[in-house]
């Protein structure tokens, strides 16, 4: 850290944050600061206390997947999980209303299934590619490489 750069940027940044907080209280009839702060900090809490441990749990389980499939499976699961998380509010139809059919007009479960299918196909393609490359380079080369890197298995964490 460059101390001088940090001190200048920290003063500027905290100034900008103070402006945001002032606006929050100045406009409290609309922002409801007490309610707002729960949502503002709640996201970090949910991420650190729920989402991150779940992801680490899944990552640990993936540690046992054999080498040629592992990277592809990890990538596919990341993509699938992020897409599902993003579409989830639409899928549940939280914003739907009987007087306005133009809100959330799509069939999101079908859309999500089709998207996950595409991700699954791409994942399988990458896994097959990795398996094929592994076969071509042969077991001997693979073993040599493994001994070179001390057969360091990625624990996934």
């Amino acid at each position: 850290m460059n101390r001088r750069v940090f001190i200048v940027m920290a003063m500027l940044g905290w100034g900008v944050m103070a402006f945001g907080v002032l606006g929050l209280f100045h406009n409290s009839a609309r922002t409801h600061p007490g309610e707002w702060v729960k949502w503002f900090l709640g996201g970090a809490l949910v991420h650190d206390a729920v989402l991150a441990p779940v992801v680490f749990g899944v990552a640990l389980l993936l540690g046992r997947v054999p080498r040629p499939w592992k990277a592809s499976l990890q990538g596919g699961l990341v993509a699938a999980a992020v897409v599902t998380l993003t579409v989830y509010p639409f899928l549940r139809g939280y914003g739907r209303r009987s007087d306005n059919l133009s809100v959330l007009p799509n069939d999101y479960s079908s859309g999500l299934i089709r998207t996950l299918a595409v991700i699954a196909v791409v994942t399988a393609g990458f896994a097959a590619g990795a398996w094929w490359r592994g076969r071509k380079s042969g077991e001997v080369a693979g073993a040599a490489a493994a001994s070179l890197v001390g057969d360091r298995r990625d624990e996934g964490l």
Partner: protein
Amino acid sequence: MRRRPMVRMARGVTRLFDPPAGARIGPLKEGFFKSRLHDERLSAQLGIALGVTFTICFVTGLLSHLIQYPPAWFTWPPRPAGLYRLSQGVHVATGIASIPLLLAKLWVVYPHFWTWPPVRNVLHLIERISLLPLVGGSIFLLFSGLANIGLWYPWRFFFPAGHYSGAWITIGALIVHIGAKATLTRRVLARDRGRSEAPGDGLSRRGFLGVVGGTAGLLTLLTVGQTFRPLNRLAILAPRRPDVGPQGFPVNKSAASAKITDDHVGPSYRLLVTGAVTTALALSLDDLRALPQHEATLPIACVEGWSAEASWRGVRVAELLQRAGAAPDADVTVESLQASGLYKASALNALQARDPDTLLALEINGETLHIDHGYPVRLIGPNRPGVMQTKWVEKLVVS
């Protein structure tokens, strides 16, 4: 005597910077996190990407705020007609694409949460405290924005006001973070250029970047069609479709939710032009139809990031102002029949009011307006947010 608490506090702070080694357990231990993805270079790359996307969102969001609540120094022009559609489409699309970037960044840097010692000195303490508004704020902005485009409001605050304050606080925290990491980022990116992958059998650094970029691209591809016409058919995950709604056109606020009834829009309906005018006007729907009609092809560009274009037909606002004898530089407030709601009125600055395409529309695509689209009369003008295209217009107040 009075110095004692200070001394005690100073001792406490020192202890904070030099905690007992026995407290270093679990994830606090060196080497607890083994994935090669907890990597400085990856963190720097994702950080730069997020810095760019958050800046884009902040600037476009601030612009949208200024347009809706213009201070004295800000005049939003009516041209180019599609500029707001573009800037707000970019705001929402960039926000959606930031979701995978942010989650990836949080995963990569997660071990730093358990850094040892937890604080090294005062500057490090300030840096770490600033991470709470940065992480909380980033998640808050993306989550609340995503909920808003699906018209989901699980909280009690007014979304635009809460999102706006959150944006300033998050950007402030981002400035602090850039101050803390700029030197390291530059060093890491220069040092590690073309570096080979660390050993391991899981996802590689490049593979992970590919997955994150691919996911951002996929989400964009499957949602951006809500405003970008060529990808309309691919918008299977978008919260809106430009061709779904009454008369094949989306609606944000229905007549029922605005409490507009047939009584409001029956034969007794009159459009009033009042305020700073020489001749106040009160025009029936037939009077309006008898005036010269003009056609304009303009989008409704919603703050929620969708847009749809239609051909509108009606009376020029400029023509009504001229008939009422309003000054050529007068501003106009357009008021709705809607009894309540923050969007029951909108402002037209002098430039917007005089634009030949700013209409009080009676028809959409050759049909009389559906009541959900603002029958009998709605405002439509170029380069305006959808919430300012006031429906069920009752009054033009000249000032």
